[in-house]
């Protein structure tokens, strides 16, 4: 007796197991970042009027804008890789996955440049509560990017053999990791304005 609905949808719920699983995981992630965002609100309200805005002036808005564009592009290539599998085009899938990974790498390099510029100017998490929450939020987001990259890389090269044996399940896996990837992208869409623009 195999575990049912690992690949096919259950008729009355209309979903396969892993998809429900990832949505529940993302719900918990929403609560995790929700907790941190409310910490941001709490600290901002507790700080002297205008202090958060003033402290944030040191941040590099053009670089962050570039990073936002890069991350949005990676979300698009991620969808394209899944669509390619749906259309039975394995070569294109490989290409789009490579592009997604490349975007993620660019994002991290730019983030690294931003971090080192801050540290060069002697700005640390301990400088004030704005930089405390800035480094915590972006750092945690960065860890999510790295975690996603590990999974993407696995599915790109070593794990892609599954396409030959269980193509349907492999396509599902790409959909699942895609959902996660879009979520990480979405978190950044929130982080960018509250940290860099407000």
């Amino acid at each position: 007796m195999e575990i049912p609905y690992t690949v096919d949808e259950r008729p009355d719920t209309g979903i396969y197991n892993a998809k429900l699983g990832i949505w529940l995981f993302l719900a918990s992630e929403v609560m995790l970042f929700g907790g941190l965002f409310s910490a941001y609100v709490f600290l901002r309200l507790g700080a002297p009027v205008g202090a958060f805005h003033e402290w944030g002036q040191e941040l590099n808005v053009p670089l962050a804008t570039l990073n936002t564009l890069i991350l949005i592009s990676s979300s698009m290539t991620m969808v394209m890789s899944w669509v390619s599998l749906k259309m039975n085009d394995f070569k294109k899938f490989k290409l789009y996955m490579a592009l997604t990974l490349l975007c993620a790498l660019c994002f991290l390099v730019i983030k690294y440049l931003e971090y080192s510029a801050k540290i060069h100017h002697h700005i640390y998490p301990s400088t004030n509560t704005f930089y405390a929450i800035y480094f915590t939020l972006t750092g945690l987001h960065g860890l999510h990017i790295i975690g996603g990259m590990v999974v993407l890389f696995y599915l790109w090269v070593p794990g892609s053999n599954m396409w030959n044996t269980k193509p349907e399940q492999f396509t599902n896996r790409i959909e699942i990791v895609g959902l996660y990837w879009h979520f990480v992208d979405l978190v950044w869409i929130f982080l960018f304005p509250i940290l860099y623009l407000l």
Partner: protein
Amino acid sequence: MNAHSHHEESFFRKYIWSTDHKIIGLQYGLTALLFLSVGFFLMMVMRWQLAYPETPIPFVGSFFGEDGILLPEIYNSLGAMHGTIMIFLGVVPLAVGAFGNYLVPLQIGAPDMAFPKLNATSYWSYFIGGVIMMGSFFSEEGAARSGWTSYPPLADIEVGQTIWLIGMVFLITSSLLGSINIITTIVQLRAPGLTWSRLPFFVWTQLVTSFLLVLAFPPLEAAAVLQLMDRVASTSFFLPSGLVISGEALAVSGGGSPLLWQHLFWFLAHPEVYVLILPAMGIVSEVLANNTRKPLWGYNSLVYSVIFLGFMSFVVWAHHMFLTGMGTAMSSFFQITTMIISIPSVIILSALLISLWGASIRFNTPMLFALAFLPMFGIGGLTGLPLGMAASDIYLHDTYYVIGHFHYVVAPGTIFALFAGIYYWYPKITGRRMNEGLGQLHFWPSLLFMNGVFMPMFIQGLAGVSRRLWDGGLEYAHAAGVLQWNEFMSISAWLLGISQIPFIINIFYSLKRGEKVDRNPWEATTLEWAAPSPPLPHINFETLPEVHREAYEYSVPGRNRDFTPQTEPKKG
């Protein structure tokens, strides 16, 4: 049965990195029972200091301070770790990890959990978290000593807290993975015919509990990350400006808020209370229905109540914070929500109580524990009402009254239910019944001494004795009239410890000598009893069960047996 299930698994695959939900459930159960004893042991040591302040502890004194006298800082460590171990390493893993894992797939007629590898990961994450927590006792700084609630600023600057936070991250991860798995399993893997209204009530409680874990734990993880940053990267999330410690200004930027921690912490920790109690209610319902030989009274009310309870538990957290000066408007709001949440709890308790009406009850060990749960949880719940109201809470806050209240909920409440569950499902797990005589020898003294430990706490608390005093209140004039209870409570606690010996003996004795039983020794209706005892490795059932009726068809008039299993087809 397919050929796949016949091949021999290595010892490692079978018992260590097993993906069988039954083995993982047992791993959880045994580890959690071990941690429960450790947590209990810490408390027995503390109770020596409370009963006989500053006298050497017999037998184990040399571990806890020079001359065997418990040092105040070690006392604080024991207090913080007693709470942490009992909640995060003991009761939750036993109620959700062990019972949820073992029983949910069986009760819904599934071959395994939806994600077997994730299941194993969640157990081992729990295990690592446990090892880190235990290891902290032997680290240079010692274990955490800022209370299980870890309130800053103290927790930001006191030693031992960093390891605690790292341990918590593992425990939280474990709970998240486990509960995602349980929800997916219940939604996706129900056997054909097992509609939502036919689910056993235990499965409902596990479902709601898992939702609480998925949604409430991440904010604590967020808070843990922030506190870790405070400690490791010298940030000031929870440190206000101008903090002076031992006459010296603290060298941090300041600007943070200690209240932020309390909000994030209690946003988890209040739903956590329901994580502790809901599975217990589920277990008690199963045992009650079976031993009253009647359907549960008000199945629908029970289900709606438990869902409403789960929802409301997210909007009551600040009733733990009436004394923080957050304002009367906030206090009023949380006072009202707290009064509202008591309604579904009372509905559940009433429905279970009414289920007893007119029944010819079988008084076996599981039933005794389940029956004791009702008044014990009742006392715990009702004593909570004065704490939920801001005016009376101002007086009772942080006194022994609070300790008495939540221990009545969790110790003679939840833990009795867990004992009931162990006695009830032991035949399913091992194929043998637990010894009835030893069971009674376990139950009656436990009931007596539980009350001996916790009832006097209300008396002390009403007199105003604070909960975290190393000397038990010796230096306070207002405590003088109630201090004599300390010795009484301590002796009850040690006797309670001794009362657990028949249980431990029973577990091992019945493994070899218990009465052999077939698949349905209690003549029960739910699906787990349709599987062999013990259920088959990895697949549970010989054939996929099909469900034809509701969960508790006991004593239906006109039938020749007083129970009708869910798998029995309807005629005509």
